[in-house]
């Protein structure tokens, strides 16, 4: 309405000629008052030149013009929009991001394609949503929480893992990995490789057949099955904290062959040097890789006095007593907090040496000896060690052929120890009497939260009672965590009572 008034005053001399159109326009306005203001505000005021005839004015006022097929309400996009589109289109050749305003940056990022080469995007884009898109496009399932909540980290870690997993020594170009190194070195903290392929076999069978005829197959085959040497890669990753390796082939199914799972001495030496040089490493896992005593000793020797290592996992290997002894030595020469030797071949002497190291250790929190064969001798040694140890919280002794003597000793430990929170004695032959003794020990304990006695020949009654005690302990622990200050004193007060009983 105001606009029309303004125009009418502007065109005062030719008022008589326009008067009819004015009337028309007012009529039009009355018919569509709702959208009128918005339209007026959107369309930029046309230049008031002299050749401004009445026809254009009529057009301007109309909403839809039937005669003009190209007329539409869509507005010409802003120049910034166009620029952003252009930037997005040519991002690969000319990446402009940091110079833009934050809202424009956001727009550009939301329109970038996830297929852009990493060399362009790796160090330029920090935006999580972009990397989230990249990740979700490549992998349907993504656990961001496992990668510190960072999609970028997740992307690079999984990308690198994929590359290593499908790296075939001798055929794949190592440059593929090393080229990626400068791009991902500051983002990768965890390397979880569950498959390391051996060199390609196809040319091997005919040769090996010939060689087997000549009778010297062992020597030539050994170097042929060396896996990818991680040394250069790991040395380049300056923030690497976790290394999880399996020297083996996944999903081989019925194509199983023994030499697919060979962890050679050269691999072992190279890996030892690698982890020794990597000072930021906190967690090292090497599972299902046929690590025997000698290899374990090589690896553990390189880990002695490591500045950062906190967790060592050598489960599902072939480590026997000598390896266990080496691990025991490592316990006293590092700040190891978690040691996992599950499903190995540790027997009583190995367990005894571990117990010896454990007796005065102040770092180790968790010890897992599942599916070994330490038997009563080792179990008793460990129980003795636990009487002096003040640090261990989790102990897993499942499937170790333990029986009643260990249980009696452990029940004593339970009444004394105040740090243990979880014990697993499943799949042993504790027996009925052992169960009763454990129950007695359990009744004096106020800290244990988990005690697994499944399939260990314990009477159901005692198992149930133990479960009750555990429930009470758990409740107490919960109250303690809820208000630590209030319940501190009762515990301290109760502390001296326990040994008295």
């Amino acid at each position: 309405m105001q606009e029309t008034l303004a125009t009418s005053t502007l065109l005062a001399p030719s008022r008589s000629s326009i008067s009819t159109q004015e009337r028309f326009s007012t009529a039009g306005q009355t018919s569509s008052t709702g959208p009128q203001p918005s339209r007026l505000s959107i369309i930029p005021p046309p230049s008031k030149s002299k050749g401004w005839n009445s026809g254009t004015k009529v057009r301007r006022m109309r909403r839809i013009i039937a005669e003009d097929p190209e007329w539409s309400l869509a507005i010409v996009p802003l120049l910034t929009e166009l620029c952003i589109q252009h930037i997005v289109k040519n991002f690969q050749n000319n990446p402009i991001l940091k110079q833009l305003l934050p809202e424009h940056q956001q727009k550009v990022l939301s329109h970038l394609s996830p297929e852009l080469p990493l060399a362009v995007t790796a160090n330029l884009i920090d935006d999580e949503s972009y990397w989230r898109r990249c990740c979700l496009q490549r992998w349907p399932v993504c656990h961001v929480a496992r990668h510190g909540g960072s999609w970028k980290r997740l992307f690079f870690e999984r990308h690198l893992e994929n590359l290593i997993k499908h790296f075939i020594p001798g055929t794949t170009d190592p440059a593929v990995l090393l080229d990626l190194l400068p791009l991902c070195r500051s983002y990768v903290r965890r390397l979880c490789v569950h498959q390391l392929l051996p060199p390609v076999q196809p040319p091997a069978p005919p040769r090996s057949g010939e060689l087997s005829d000549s009778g010297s197959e062992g020597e030539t085959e050994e170097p042929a099955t060396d896996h990818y040497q991680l040394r250069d890669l790991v040395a380049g990753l300056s923030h690497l904290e976790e290394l999880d390796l399996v020297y083996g082939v996944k999903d081989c199914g019925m194509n199983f062959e023994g030499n697919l799972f060979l962890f050679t001495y050269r691999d072992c030496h190279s890996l030892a040097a690698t982890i020794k040089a990597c000072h930021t490493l906190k967690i090292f896992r090497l599972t299902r890789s046929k690590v025997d005593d000698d290899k374990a000793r090589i690896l553990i020797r390189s880990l002695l006095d490591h500045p950062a290592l906190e967790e060592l996992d050598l489960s599902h290997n072939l480590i026997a007593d000598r390896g266990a002894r080496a691990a025991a030595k490592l316990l006293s020469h590092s700040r190891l907090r978690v040691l996992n030797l599950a499903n190995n071949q540790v027997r009583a002497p190995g367990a005894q040496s571990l117990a010896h190291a454990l007796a005065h250790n102040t770092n180790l929190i968790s010890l897992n000896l599942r599916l070994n064969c330490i038997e009563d001798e080792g179990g008793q040694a460990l129980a003795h060690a636990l009487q002096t140890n003040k640090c261990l919280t989790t102990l897993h002794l499942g499937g170790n052929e333990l029986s009643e003597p260990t249980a009696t000793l452990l029940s004593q430990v339970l009444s004394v120890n105040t740090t243990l929170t979880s014990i697993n004695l499943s799949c042993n032959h504790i027996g009925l009497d052992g169960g009763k003794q454990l129950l007695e020990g359990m009744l004096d304990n106020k800290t244990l939260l988990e005690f697994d006695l499944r399939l260990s020949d314990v009477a159901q009654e005692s198992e149930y009672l133990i479960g009750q005690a555990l429930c009470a302990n758990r409740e107490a622990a919960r109250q303690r965590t809820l208000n630590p200050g209030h319940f501190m004193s009762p515990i301290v007060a109760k502390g001296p009572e326990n040994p008295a009983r």
Partner: protein
Amino acid sequence: MNPPGPLGVLEEKEEEHLSTPILGPSIHSDNPQERIQARRLRIAARLEARRREALGEYLDGKKESEEDQRKSYKQKEESRLKLAKLLLCGTELVTNIQVATDIREIHRRVEEEEIKRQRLEKLENEVKTSQDKFDEITAKWEVGKQKRIPQDLWDMLNTQQVHCAGLIEDKNKLISELQQELKIKDDQYVKDLKKQSDDICLLLERMEEQVKHVMKTFRQELNYIEKAFEIERQELLTSNKKKWERALQAHNAKELEYLMNRIKKAEDYEKQLNRQRMWDWEEYNMIKIKLEQDVQVLEQQLQQMKATYQLNQEKLEYNFQVLKKRDEESTVIKSQQKRKINRLHDTLNNLRSKYAKQIKQFQEENQSLTSDYKRLVMQFKELQKAMRHFALIDDKQFREIWLMNEEEAKDLISRAFDVDRIIHTHHLGLPWTAPDFWFLRNVGPISQQPQKSATQIVEEVLMQAEEEGTEEAASEAESYLDLPRQISPKTTRKILMLLCDESGFLVESKLLSLLLPLEKNECYLLRLDAIFSALGIESEDDLYKLVNFFLKYRVYHSPSSQEQTSLLSALEPGEQPDLEGQKEESLVEGEPEEKEAPPSPRLIHPNDVLKILEAFVMGLKKPRDSRAPVKLKYVRDNSKDSAYWEALTTVIPDTTQNLWDALYTALEKYHLILTQRAKLLIENNSLEQQNTELQMLLQKYLDSKVGDREAPRRVGRRLGEAVGLLLGNESLPSLEARER
């Protein structure tokens, strides 16, 4: 989940509790029943708290709030326990599979071990048996070698072959068995794989089931908890509403009460206001009347004032006129004065400029005068210098002239004396005695005292002392070097000896070595000379001052340290006249002091000598400087000169002169006679000579008659001349003769 029964009870309870904070029984209440109830409630609360503590439940300080939340809390606890149990069971269920596989694995291992052991045993047995068989066969080879008969050999070979075949068959059987086992193992592996996949499937199934179950139960529990909270909230709402209504009612009642009070008060105030108004009105009337009266009086006064004002106005106008006139006059005067001031300013400026000029002039003059003055001072100084110089020269000249004149006079006198003596002795024949006058012995200007040097005095002193042993009285009579000193020479000598002994350091070592062979006195003399030169003692006065100083030092000996300064002051030039006066005084009382003097040197400790010397040298420096001009002003006394010279003229007395006059006349007469005689003598001599000459000429004439006629003529002429001469001089001899 929540049974409706206890809910109602709870509600009731809650209601009761809600009422407590507002109208609840209080311990401090007046009603004993209420007090009892309050105590009961308190005890119940304590019991409740204890019970909870026993249960291990955390009990917060705010019991009431906890009680309020009890239902929801209970629900929460229940749900939590249930869920925890569920989770535990679920994990157990899931992990059961793992445990089962574990135990299976253990069983498998045990079995495997057993089988392995059996297999090994079997293999070992096999090896043993086959070895036995092999041994048997090899043994038979030995037997076979001994066989000669081919038939036997053939049989044996056959049997051997059979044995070998058996052995191989055994081995093959074993191999096939092992292969069979391997196949079984392969099958086993396949089975295991299948089993594993089954297990994994089961695990996944269970996990999924678990997840579903857990989710369901969680949702359910959440619903329950929500419901509980809802109910609680509603309860709270209703209770709060009730509370609110109650409060509102109370508020209304109070409001009404306030209103009534207000109305009552308003009435009261109205009454008061009316009363006040009445009172005020009366007062106002009174004041009004009074004020009106006042106004009338004041109007009258105003009229009077107006009249006076008129009068005053006229007066003032007149005055104004006068003042205007005066002002005009004053302006005229002012302009005049201003002009005058201007003029005066001009003059003042002129004067100032003049004054400045004069100041400048005078300054210049002053400068020129000061420069003149300086120049004059310079000139004066030069003049003084010249004067001094001239004075010296004059002195010298005077002395020289004096000496010359004196010499001349003395010459004359001596000649006179000679003449007199000659006259006396030769002419008169009297004995002559030379007259003895004081001035004859005098040489040089009178009254110039001979200034002796210190060393000379010392020498004298020493000499004196030497002689003293023999003629003590004589020295006393001589009054010691004609200088009136109060110090005896002996004392002086001792002091000097002491000085000489103590201040050897002032003497050069070279000199000391030279002095060794000399006599004692000479040695002292030379030493003292050196010491004096070192101390700067030149004149006699200095020496005596030194000696005096020593003596005074002794006098003030006891308070030595203090008196040194006074001694010093005593030496100052300003006090010199005083010193002289003292000297005179001491001269007067010289005798008693003299007596005390002798022991003095003994009393002066040798150690003090250096102190005294130091003080003396310090004191001596100053007077020395100021004394020089004083000396110059010394004016010669020329009163005695005329007398002297007068005396010189009267060396020859008048009597002798008269004698000489008489003698002179007599002698002159005598001289006359003598001169006549001399003349006569000379005449006689010349006549004799002429005579001889004439004789000679006659002779010649006689001789020359022969030869020359002329010659007699020449002789004759000569003779004539001679005769003439003789005749001319004839009177002289007679005179001479007469004189004689």
